[in-house]
């Protein structure tokens, strides 16, 4: 099997003694749409920084499509496109110059670079802005510019660090469509995101990193199956002042006054509706709470923190 990315025993110690990565192993298959999730400071950006040569590793091995970054860095870099979290282009340069210059760094002659730049700027809706200095673009456009720049040399693996941070919903959806299209055409995609809804909508495989360690590395389907409870949102005919007591169910009021109920697997919904009926609560509509992955993620990170604390207590 071909791996787009293989990481073995990767560690990173910063100068101040902080250990950002404590020996992580990770494999991403060719053609995958992969999410690397974790709370702030967990080690996501450090991992991607090492893969993309922006951070020096302390130890371990990284291979991009089989090219080891220690022995075959040039080919590893040729296979890779990187979209960082922060804007990192020269704000005074024109959009088209930023993209063609990047192509030049990959050894693509100017004529071919212009063709490729036009293709991706058009795909990302920036062609009309090609002669605009980058600083004049909106936040969403700047982010799309970084995607066009990362794709100009047609990499087989695209890494995106928080690609939709600060982007409005409409644009986020169009970026999702674009990434899905890229993935369908064969580009392997790895992203980190804070929007777990994003990972749930796009990715097939997921790794969760916390405190510099991978705490889960599995498929999204398998991960979601681990959800022992599912949350439902119910819109009631009459607004509720407080959540009713529903024996066997955990209920609370959501931000918009809708009733949110957690239903355990196998518990069924009939009992829930009987309880509601007996209290005279009429339900107008019902939907599953979208961020199932978010719940699971929060639970896992909390569990990990609890385990770390109790391990510390045992040692103490």
């Amino acid at each position, binding site marked *: 099997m071909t791996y787009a990315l293989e990481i073995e025993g990767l560690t990173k110690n910063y100068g101040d003694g902080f250990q950002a990565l404590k020996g992580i192993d990770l494999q991403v298959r060719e053609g995958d749409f992969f999410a690397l999730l974790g709370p702030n400071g967990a080690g996501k950006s450090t991992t991607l920084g090492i893969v993309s040569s922006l951070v020096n590793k302390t130890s371990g091995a990284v291979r991009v499509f089989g090219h080891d970054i220690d022995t075959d860095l040039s*080919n590893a*870099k040729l296979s890779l496109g990187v979209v960082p979290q922060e804007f*990192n282009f*020269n704000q005074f340069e024109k959009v088209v110059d930023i993209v063609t210059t990047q192509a030049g760094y990959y*050894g693509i002659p100017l004529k071919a670079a212009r063709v490729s730049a036009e293709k991706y700027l058009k795909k990302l809706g920036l062609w009309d802005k090609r002669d605009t200095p980058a600083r004049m673009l909106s936040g969403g456009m700047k982010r799309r510019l970084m995607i066009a720049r990362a794709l100009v040399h047609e990499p087989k693996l695209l890494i995106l660090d928080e690609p939709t941070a600060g982007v409005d919903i409409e644009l986020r959806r169009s970026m999702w469509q674009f990434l899905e299209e890229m993935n369908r055409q064969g580009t392997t995609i790895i992203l980190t995101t804070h929007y777990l809804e994003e990972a749930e909508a796009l990715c097939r495989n997921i790794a969760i990193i916390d405190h510099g360690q991978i705490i889960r590395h599995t498929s999204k389907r398998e991960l979601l199956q681990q959800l022992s409870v599912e949350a439902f949102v119910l819109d009631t005919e009459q607004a509720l002042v407080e959540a009713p007591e529903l024996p066997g169910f955990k209920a609370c009021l959501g931000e918009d006054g809708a009733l949110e109920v957690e239903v355990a697997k196998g518990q069924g919904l009939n009992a829930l509706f009987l309880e509601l009926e007996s209290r005279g609560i009429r339900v107008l509509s019902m939907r599953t709470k979208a961020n199932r992955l978010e719940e699971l993620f929060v639970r896992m990170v909390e569990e990990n923190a609890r385990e770390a604390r109790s391990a510390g207590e045992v040692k103490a």
Partner: protein
Amino acid sequence: MTPQALWTAFSTIVIREVRRFTRIWPQTLLPPAVTMTLYFIIFGNLIGSRIGEMGGYDYMQFIVPGLIMMAVITNSYANVVSSFFSMKFQRSIEELLVSPVPNWTILSGYVAGGMARGLSIGLIVTVLSLAFTRLSIHNLPMVVVTVILTSALFSLGGFINAMLATKFDDISIVPTFVLTPLTYLGGVFYSIQLLPSFWQGVSMANPILYMVNGFRYGILGVSDVNPFVSLGMILVFIILLAVVALRMLARGKGIRH
């Protein structure tokens, strides 16, 4: 990368650098033209006419090679230090770091960019000087080689300064407190033979003295030092600074965590 791809990457860096300093020409090309014209008028014409001869030439003719060299030195240095530091500051240096361009190509691209500005300004100042004096070239190859090597050397210096700099103040410290005094004391305005022997000895430790004199020899045929010793010293310094800069790049000093 293939040799052709390397050439594309190198020329991309150089074109970007040239585009940068020509885009901001009022900050880069115009000031040295104005400053040097003032030097020519004040030191060359007004004061120079009272000084008389120096080194067998009238004062204006004597200072022109030094002033051209001064413009080349400061602008080669300034171009690389500000361009590379801005890249670091805006993090657009990451565009290069993620790409397969080898470190020596990055370094040579920036040095060539610094040389493009330094030598363009050298040419502008030379043309301006023709309005004030007549320049006859004594040894053309010496002029060309000295000015090219000096420009390369100070572009390297600017690169190292930018690698070490962590804030904007750091990119003006060396030009203000090291480069300017060394240039002024490097025999631009006087022949060191005017100095007492002790200060002549001290001046010989100033590397810029060799560059100014090597260049002056090429134009006028007079020098305080052996022009071939000058060339040798510039070459040694170039090799030394190139090794330092490449080692810094390999370690990612100030650009990789």
